[in-house]
């Protein structure tokens, strides 16, 4: 006997104790697919036959069952299931998850069941129990009892011999076309507009001769339904689409109009409104055969399709994630009508619930049903009904290109009962939705999928710490599309008097297989991310921010300037230089994200300077110089005097070190902005360009700023295979730091570099000997200190730097792909959370 069950079903085995359910299940299903009541009794009571454990066992069983059905997994219930009320509960659960319930009944002779139980010492309950089971099973298979309970398929096996012959087949659900990978041309609501349909198909490259349509190589058309009603030639549209579907060049899902027309043609009582009358009149001129073909065609349409390995869903009125690929009346209703709130609007039309606003699925959903002027992406869903029959246009979405193609309606064929939804004046639907992010998308333990480094985990306590910073201090999340990663220093040098030297940086990258690196001057200021739009319009179009045309924020996402007019001036200056250098045209963009250093350090770090760096300098200077003075007047202390003199000398060097990075700022002209990464522009994250490209692009902008607020970063390219080039790099670093420079950043020439063991550090810093006094204290260069400071572990910092880099770039990539803001924010939030992992703050 062949048993064919839908691939996604809830299989309920029904049979007496001893009827062989468990063996049957083991024979035909995976162990993880089987939920056995005995097994659950064992789990909760250490005794598979403990009847007192039954309520708890079933509670646990149902918990797992719901998880499995939610995940879309076929599940088998191995329990006696002889009582109607037990089965009803299972059927209801299957329905709740839109999974088809299937009954397989093992109606075995009572004698056989008794024999089997007798051979099992753990099943010594009385014969009356089995007798009760057997008669209950027999009652349940009488008539169409099980079907009436809601089982869609019922199979009854009556003897061990019949059980032995069973072959089990899993059949694909009608809506499952995952194996079709496209490319597709998904076409919106046609409503009898044959001319526009032909025009659109031609524009999409389909060959048309009469009703024979030839798609471009490999492409398939997909109709979102509502082929009929209101328009001038419903029969022609039907003929064309039916022909394409029959020829395998198109797929079609039903629309509510199509279904209603079918019912009317089939003689059902329906109210003839909303353009149905036209269709009926037009079809009255067709042959009865054609009309009956139409009925068959619409009747055979599947509510929705899941295509391209689950990445694309097409349905007339959309499809919630929980219903995709499922089969039930609810699914079909949703596909035809969407979800309504139960209210009606001022035009008497049902108010539609905005399921797309809540959509979190990973599949793209393309649908029609609700006419709009312009299609808009909302959370990976798009409605492509652009009201052709109401004088709008007929639109197709090319998949996977995600390009929209439209033809305008030749005229208005019908008057809409309410005006086509006007395009929102200020923000798109997505941008309005993005105004409110969900807490559940950022708190708790989180795993961020990144292209560069796979899954990156954010610990719950770090997310909690980040929430406070983000909520209290961060800028509008719509601007916050990127946070920079932390940067590891170079391996510790063993050279006398030094902690960090460039030789180790060169060796690190050489060992990683890198051929060329760049040494860039490391500016001693504060990290600043600049997000800038060409104008207010571009800012609102691309970022959904009104009244601001850009922003400057710190590495923790805080607004850089308390004085917003200063921020405006700086952005204005930068914008002018970008415009003057032809940046917008050259990059084909209206916005950019720049990674920069903003100087002087004192502008941002004034409280640190006044609260820590300067007081410590003043204290050290005063305490040590007084010690030196009294030691100078004392006896028997020559050695001590020498020691304190050398300590005092380091303090002078320390005070000089910080003073270099301090100057008063009165106006914009006192600031220096040094951009060093051109991170992203429209359509591109520039991590595929090398650093030479980045610096050259940015140098062009800086050169256009004649008054010198924009500052070009000095750099040296190093050929790691050349000893001479490496020596030159060392000399370059020594000269740079001797001039008081903070140090250098060493980067592989390519923005993203992989070594033998995976992603390499995107950069390592090599800080100057004097600068490090600000980090390790004035006296760190004294040999007795240096020897201890050399033992520092870099691995935690390096791992953190890589994770933050991967997550930061991921956020930008999501932004550039125009994903909903929550997806970008997830990554940005994760960078901030990772930053609260404990690492040595001196690194």
């Amino acid at each position, binding site marked *: 006997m062949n048993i064919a069950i839908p691939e996604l079903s809830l299989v309920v085995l029904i049979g007496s104790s001893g009827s062989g359910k468990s063996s049957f299940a083991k024979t035909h299903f995976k162990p993880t697919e089987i939920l056995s009541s005995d097994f659950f009794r064992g789990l909760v009571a250490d005794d598979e036959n403990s009847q007192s454990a039954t309520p708890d066992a079933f509670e646990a069983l149902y918990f797992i069952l719901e998880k499995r059905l939610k995940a879309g997994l076929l599940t088998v219930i191995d329990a006696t299931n002889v009582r109607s009320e037990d089965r009803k509960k299972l059927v209801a659960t299957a329905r709740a998850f839109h999974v088809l319930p299937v009954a397989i009944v093992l109606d075995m002779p009572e004698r056989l069941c008794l024999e089997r139980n007798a051979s099992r010492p753990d099943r010594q309950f009385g014969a009356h129990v089995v007798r009760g089971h057997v008669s209950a099973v027999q009652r349940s298979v009488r008539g169409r009892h099980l079907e009436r309970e809601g089982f869609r398929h019922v199979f009854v096996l009556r003897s061990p011999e019949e059980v032995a012959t069973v072959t089990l087949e899993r059949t694909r659900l009608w809506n499952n076309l995952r194996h079709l990978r496209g490319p597709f041309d998904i076409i919106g609501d046609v409503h009898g507009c044959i001319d526009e349909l032909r025009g659109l198909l031609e524009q999409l490259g389909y060959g048309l001769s009469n009703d024979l349509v030839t798609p471009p190589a490999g492409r398939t058309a997909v109709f979102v339904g509502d082929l009929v009603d209101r328009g001038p030639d419903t029969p022609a549209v039907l003929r064309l689409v039916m022909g394409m579907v029959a020829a395998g060049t198109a797929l079609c899902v039903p629309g509510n109009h199509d279904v209603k027309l079918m019912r009317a043609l089939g003689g059902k009582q329906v109210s003839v409104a909303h353009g149905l009358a036209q269709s009926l009149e037009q079809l009255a001129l067709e042959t009865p055969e054609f009309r009956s073909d139409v009925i068959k065609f619409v009747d055979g349409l599947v509510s929705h399709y899941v295509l391209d390995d689950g990445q694309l869903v097409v349905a007339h009125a959309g499809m919630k994630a929980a219903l995709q690929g499922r089969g039930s009346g609810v699914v079909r209703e949703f596909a035809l009508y969407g979800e309504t709130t139960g209210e009606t609007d001022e035009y008497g039309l049902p108010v539609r619930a905005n399921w797309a606003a809540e959509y979190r699925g990973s599949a793209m959903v393309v649908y029609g049903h609700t006419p709009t002027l312009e299609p808009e992406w909302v959370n990976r869903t798009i409605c492509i009904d652009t009201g052709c029959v109401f004088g709008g246009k007929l639109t197709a979405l090319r998949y996977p290109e995600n390009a929209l193609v439209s033809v305008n309606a030749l005229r208005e064929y019908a008057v809409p009962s309410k005006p086509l939804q006007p395009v929102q004046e200020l923000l798109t639907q997505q941008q309005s939705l993005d105004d409110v992010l*969900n807490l559940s998308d950022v708190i708790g333990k989180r795993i961020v999928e990144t292209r560069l480094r796979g899954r990156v985990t954010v610990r719950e306590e770090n997310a909690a710490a980040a929430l406070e910073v983000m909520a209290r201090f961060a800028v509008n999340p719509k601007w916050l599309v990127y946070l920079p990663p932390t940067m590891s220093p170079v391996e510790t040098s063993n050279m006398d008097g030094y902690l960090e030297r460039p030789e180790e940086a060169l060796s690190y990258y050489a060992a990683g297989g890198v051929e060329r690196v760049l040494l860039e001057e490391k500016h001693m200021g504060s990290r600043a991310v600049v997000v800038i739009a060409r104008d207010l319009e571009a800012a609102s179009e691309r970022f959904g921010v009104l009244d601001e045309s850009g922003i400057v924020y710190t590495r923790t996402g805080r607004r850089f300037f308390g004085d917003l007019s200063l921020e405006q001036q700086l952005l204005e200056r930068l914008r002018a230089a970008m415009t003057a250098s032809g940046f917008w045209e050259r990059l084909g963009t209206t916005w950019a994200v720049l990674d920069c250093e903003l100087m002087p350090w004192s502008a941002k770090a004034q409280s640190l300077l006044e609260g*820590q760096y*300067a007081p410590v300098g003043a204290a050290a200077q*005063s305490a040590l110089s007084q010690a030196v003075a*009294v030691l100078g007047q004392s*006896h028997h202390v020559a050695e001590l005097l020498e020691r304190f003199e050398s300590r005092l000398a380091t303090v002078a060097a320390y005070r000089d070190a910080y003073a270099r990075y301090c100057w008063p700022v009165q106006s914009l002209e006192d600031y220096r902005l040094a951009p060093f990464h051109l991170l992203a522009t429209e359509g591109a994250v520039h991590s595929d360009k090398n650093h030479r490209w980045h610096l050259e692009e940015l140098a062009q902008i800086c050169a256009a700023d004649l008054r010198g607020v924009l500052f070009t970063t000095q750099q040296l390219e190093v050929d790691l295979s050349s000893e001479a080039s490496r020596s030159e790099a060392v000399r370059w670093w020594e000269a740079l730091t001797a001039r008081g420079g903070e140090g250098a950043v060493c980067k592989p020439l390519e923005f993203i570099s992989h070594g033998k063991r995976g992603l390499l550090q995107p950069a390592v810093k090599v800080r100057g000997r004097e600068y490090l006094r600000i980090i390790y204290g004035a006296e760190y260069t004294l040999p007795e*200190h240096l020897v201890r400071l050399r033992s520092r572990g870099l691995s935690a910092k390096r791992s953190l730097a890589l994770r933050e880099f991967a997550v930061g770039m991921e956020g930008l990539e999501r932004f550039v792909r125009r994903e909903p803001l929550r997806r970008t924010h997830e990554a940005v939030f994760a960078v901030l959370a990772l930053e609260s992992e404990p690492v040595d703050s*001196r690194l």
Partner: protein
Amino acid sequence: MLLTITTTYQPATDLGYLLHKNPARAQPPTELSFGQAHVFYSEVSAERCSAHLLLDVDPVGLVRGHGQPQQYVNDRPYAASSFLSVALARVLREGLTGRSRERPELANTLIPLEFQIACVPSRGGEKLLRGLFEPLGYSVDAQSLELDERFPAWGDSPYFNLTLRITATLSSALTHLYVLIPVLDDDKHYWVGEDEVQKLLRFGSGWLETHPLREEIAARYLKHRRALTRSLLAQLEPDLESVDDVNEEIPVTEPAQSLHQQRLETVLAELRRSGAKRVLDLGCGEGKLLRLLMADKQFEQITGMDVSHRALEFAEKRLKLAELPEARRARVTLLQGSLTYRDVRLEGFDAAALVEVIEHLELYRLAALERTVFEFMRPRVVIVTTPNAEYNAQWQTLPAGAMRHSDHRFEWTRAEFTDWAKRVASSFGYTVRVSGVGLEDALVGAASQMAVFTLVGDSA
């Protein structure tokens, strides 16, 4: 760290006997846990003798040891602190305790003394220095240190070079220094427990009882641990009242707790009037309003939300949630969250209170708050309080134009708040009533203002 002790008592070289350190000989350094202590003399004559106690603190060891200072750039190796007191007790023990083998009578004699201490931190400025030492009879000369002479605009550092002069026994003067140096520094490099109270009672005997700043001294010496301070003051002066909480997070400008208390009472009354059973305290902080709500049986479900994890931990302790019986415990939920994110856990409540919360958000983030509260949480009643900026002029201590709390991002006038409240009410389908809370001035209105929003169509 450098302490110089000079006397002009004749013969001045007898200072060596008091300190138990021979001026004619080199003294071996003393090893301490944080470095070395050296004693040496610069001036040695019958007229005048100067001894120096110099600490050579290991700056790297401090950080790498128990890691007390987290940063290498810190003043611990240089500023006078409890390190100096520890060194005094170890290295100049005889001087401190007044036990001189050779000159026992001199140890009990009042002699002219001068102390120079390099780099004394005093975050209370010269006023504190004088306030601590002058009542004990010292003449005080304090020279403040500039932060950095190259950047005059940065102003002065918190450090002073301090010279103290007195005629006293060496022991009593060193005792004062032993106690007051860490008091000035307002820190201790070691754990402070009950034995530190006993130590202070011992060293403070005879002078601390009558010192006008004894409470301040006790609090600072005991690292602001309230229980210890109370215990000390009780032993010092048994009839003394308990000390006020020092770490209350109430803006300094608000004259009394009464305004905040008044605000909470007003909000509580509104919540009672609304008939709400399930209530939210959004931005609950350490739980003052929650405590009031818990005392009223009308409120069956009480949820406190705050963005600060630490505040919630405090709230949990203050409300003694862990000790409540299960049934009462179940009424209260504390959640970390933020008003700028939609949070489904906060939906389905009858009423929400935002007491002094909105002004902690940047104005450009208020739009998000409006939507999370009024569109998504959508309780029947929302109560919002915020300072009335006009009233700020009434506070003498508040500089003109300043705000009441360093974290306030804005403070509104009555008109600004009313405009906001009306706009929010009309865009989200609420009605609103705005009123003043607290002391009322005829011209500038009340200290605080409150808006009570009621969902349109709500009959309760």
